[in-house]
């Protein structure tokens, strides 16, 4: 029997279960299908720091949220319309976020007394009416899966492990997702295990047909593809986009890419990704620690490579001294910091923006370093290219500040035309650049380009350019060790002037009505939530302007002018007000800092409220 089909413009689904239940994989697959179906989407994985936290416990819950729609959206969504809860822990951990009326798909098999008490349910929420204000779909997912796999010669335990595929099948039906891609994926994943492959496909199909047949779901939902700029798209995660950005930049710079890195969550995947691309001449080195990671990248940069090091906050702290050396050596270097919850070990798998001031000031002495930040998963690609442009043009280390939400989140990505990417070719020094009074010539390693103030990049192997550099203060131009007071003052100011003089794109303001009196200023991954909040506010006929900084150091030339245009400036950050401090100190604008440090992105709803209050107050 075919069912009634209801059109929806957007849906937010959250899959939740044990770390071992494969929720991340399930979410990823549903996302890929949704992407290729043409919806706009945004995702938010949320998992514990442990590899397999104990089954059935609250700390062990792993969740994946997906927001997809027939129009362009900017966030993974505030509150899920649908929660798939594979066990009591998953239900309990996620109820708080669930709005009344939401659909609840519950795996009843796991709601045993033992499992319930383990997370502190004294009564079964399925019976005690506590879920009455939700539309509950109690389904014995596990046993249905086992049943479906009767034919296969595999242990019950193994059969049960396919229950996530059953769930995926069910939801794929419910939202009329294409199924072919999932089959292809499974075929690749289990190429070497035909039995498992067949079982998973069977479970997936069982889930689909269960949806078709069960009374419980009277309707099937349809979300039309979104209208997006024409072109070829793919679903893109932040860490992948960042990795591709680095590879693309290296290609365009015609420099071999060298990554010196030490694994750390949530940055490790960049190391993993880049290690796959030796075909592009990409060299990856897993160092003994973060200091060796950045050290080897400095050595490679000295040798003419595009030197990169990737890490997260604690690793940046360890690299501080070596980054200072790179500042003094004035060599190109890209330092990727995928920010996570701090301080110290903090919350390794959660997102945060609290390394901005560390990136700005976390070194001894006056050691300015440019800072670039991506605003969305896909934007990590462009941000990486921009970081490389600055590093190679100005011969300086550059911070690329991503975060855990960007790293693991995904969105549809318009695949760029390679030839449209900027030309980043650099020129190595090849000859003497200084003539003495007696007419003889020399190579001066610290003789600067009058425009960029960049010093020559003279790599070993270049005849006649033999020279020595180091971390001790050098005399301007010739570069010999110098303890001279005036020279030091000059060099400190030159290094600062070089960074202050970096040309970066102007700050663009989105102020549709043009009469906004309040500006919301942000940086990094708050772009989506701020944008979504601005929309909500505007829907209510209230004017508000949004501007988002890609460059935190130096700030765009027009920043002061932009800030000056508005009565009030609000700066929402996932920290205690780090950009706010810089903006206030630099421009003496009484910016209002709105801060949350919850390890999760802002909710658009909430930000909208904040903005409205501020607008109301002007």
């Amino acid at each position, binding site marked *: 029997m075919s069912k009634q089909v209801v059109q929806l413009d957007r849906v937010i689904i959250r899959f939740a279960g044990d770390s071992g239940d494969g929720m991340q994989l399930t979410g990823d697959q549903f996302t*890929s299908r949704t*992407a*290729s*179906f*043409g919806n706009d989407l945004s995702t938010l994985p949320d998992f514990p720091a442990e590899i397999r936290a104990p089954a059935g416990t609250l700390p062990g819950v792993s969740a994946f949220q997906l927001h997809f729609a027939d129009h362009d959206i900017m966030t993974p969504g505030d509150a899920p319309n649908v929660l798939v809860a594979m066990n009591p822990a998953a239900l309990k951990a996620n109820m708080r976020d669930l709005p009344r009326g939401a659909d609840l798909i519950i795996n009843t098999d796991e709601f045993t007394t033992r499992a319930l008490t383990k997370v502190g349910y004294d009564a079964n929420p399925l019976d005690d009416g506590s879920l009455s204000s939700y539309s509950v779909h109690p389904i014995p997912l596990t046993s249905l899966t086992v049943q479906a796999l009767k034919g296969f010669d595999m242990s019950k335990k193994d059969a049960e492990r396919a229950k996530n595929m059953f769930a995926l099948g069910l939801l794929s039906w419910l939202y009329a997702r294409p199924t072919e891609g999932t089959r292809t994926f499974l075929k690749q994943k289990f190429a070497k295990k035909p039995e498992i492959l067949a079982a998973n496909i069977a479970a997936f199909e069982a889930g689909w047909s269960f949806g078709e047949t069960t009374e419980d779901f009277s309707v099937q939902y349809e979300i039309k593809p979104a209208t997006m*700029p*024409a*072109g*070829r*798209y*793919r*679903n893109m995660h932040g860490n992948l986009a960042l990795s*591709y950005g680095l*590879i*693309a930049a290296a*290609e365009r710079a015609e420099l*071999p890419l*060298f990554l010196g890195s030490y694994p750390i969550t949530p940055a490790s995947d960049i190391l993993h990704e880049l290690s796959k*691309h*030796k*075909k*592009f*001449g990409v*060299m990856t*080195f897993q*160092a*003994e*620690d973060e*200091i*060796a990671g950045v*050290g*080897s*990248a*400095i*050595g*490679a940069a*000295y*040798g*003419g*490579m595009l030197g990169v090091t990737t890490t997260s906050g604690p690793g940046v702290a360890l690299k501080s*001294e070596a980054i*200072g*050396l790179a500042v003094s050596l004035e060599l190109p270097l890209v330092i990727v910091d995928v920010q996570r919850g701090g301080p110290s070990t903090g919350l390794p798998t959660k997102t945060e923006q609290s390394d901005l001031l560390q990136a700005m000031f976390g070194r001894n002495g006056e050691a300015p370093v440019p800072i670039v930040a991506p605003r969305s998963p896909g934007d990590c690609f462009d941000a990486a290219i921009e970081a490389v442009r600055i590093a190679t043009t100005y011969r300086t280390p550059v911070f690329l500040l991503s975060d855990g939400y960007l790293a693991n989140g995904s969105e549809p990505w318009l*695949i760029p*035309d*390679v030839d449209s990417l900027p030309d980043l070719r650099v020129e190595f020094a090849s000859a003497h650049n200084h003539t003495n009074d007696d007419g003889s010539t020399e190579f001066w390693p610290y003789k600067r380009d009058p425009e960029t103030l960049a010093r020559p990049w003279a*790599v*070993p*192997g*270049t*005849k*006649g*350019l*033999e020279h*020595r*550099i*180091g*971390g*001790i203060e050098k005399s301007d131009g010739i570069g010999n*060790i110098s303890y001279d007071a005036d020279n030091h003052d000059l060099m400190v100011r030159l290094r600062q002037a070089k960074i202050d003089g970096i040309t970066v794109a102007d700050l663009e303001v989105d102020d549709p009505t043009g009469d906004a009196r309040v500006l919301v200023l942000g940086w990094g991954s708050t772009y989506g939530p701020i944008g979504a909040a601005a929309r909500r506010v505007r829907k209510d006929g209230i004017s508000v302007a949004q501007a988002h900084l890609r460059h935190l150091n130096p700030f765009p030339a027009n920043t002061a002018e932009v800030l000056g245009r508005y009565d009030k400036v609000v700066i929402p950050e996932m920290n205690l007000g780090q950009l706010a401090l810089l903006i206030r100190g630099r421009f003496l604008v009484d910016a209002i800092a709105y801060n949350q440090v919850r390890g999760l992105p802002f909710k658009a709803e909430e930000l909208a409220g904040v903005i409205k209050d501020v607008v109301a107050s002007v």
Partner: protein
Amino acid sequence: MSEAVDLGFPSLNLVPKTDVKQSAKDFKTDQEVRWCPGCGDYAILAGVQSFMPELGLAKENIVWISGIGCSSRFPYYMDTFGMHSIHGRAPAIASGLAMTRPDLSVWVVTGDGDALSIGGNHLIHALRRNVNLKILLFNNRIYGLTKGQYSPTSEVGKVTKSTPMGSLDYPFNPVSLALGAEASFVARTIDSDRKHLTETLRAAALHEGTALVEIYQNCNIFNDGAWDPLKDSDHRDSLTFRLVDGQPITLVDGSRGVIREPNGSLGIADVAEVGIDAILVHDAHNPDPSVAFALSRLSDSMTLANTPIGVFRDVARPSYDSAFQSQLALAQESGRGDLAALLAGSDTWEIV
């Protein structure tokens, strides 16, 4: 810049040769040498500068990288490429350079504090990886540049600015530590013995992979005479084992030699008593580092009695950088990657 550099380095693991005749002074810079008068570093510098021409390499393809310390000022005085980096990190920086630039001859200069105190981790990892580096460790058993605190090689009980009642730490034996860290080449020589220094540099230069050369160096300001017993002509021959491949291991004066003890250790006996045939013959190429390790244990860190100098170990093991470059080459055998294809990936959709 030499051809090799431009095109992402086809795995030619080869440093361009010089086309001119070189002499020691070609490697001197115009920089005033700023060590204390009488410092052992001068002798080492002179020794290195006069050895360099023997390599016959293009000067511009030689790089000296150092950490921080008196010894680490070395690169400023070598007319090649050079970097005076930060304390203890030279092996890490040099590794990044060496593994990406097989066309360079990369040398590291470090001190007993720089290499063994703050830099210990980078040193042992460079050794196990066998990156193609030549590491010269100037061991003066003291922190010179910071004006005389004890170092990881200082003898127990050393009274210094930071240890008025004497140091408590049991010192590292750099050779033992290196052997325990899977080093493929380990040698020891002395600043004042130009001939032996040169031989040792030669052996290190010939080795593919990481070569660690410990150089006993005198700091005449803060630890003067630390190595005197091995230098003054009256005693040195009766205190020093000179390790020569294929030769029985005896003191320079021939009086005593190394024998095997029943318990598996090595011992020392009068050659006259046991006869020269009972004396262990040195084999630096022994794949098993155990004998080299045992030799490193013979010396007394206080009296310096029975100190072996020369090449303890020199075994062939593929260098990290060659393996690193081979993987790159292998991956590109079937041609270079296609960026457009990479960006597009497999799972895409068209919006019109």
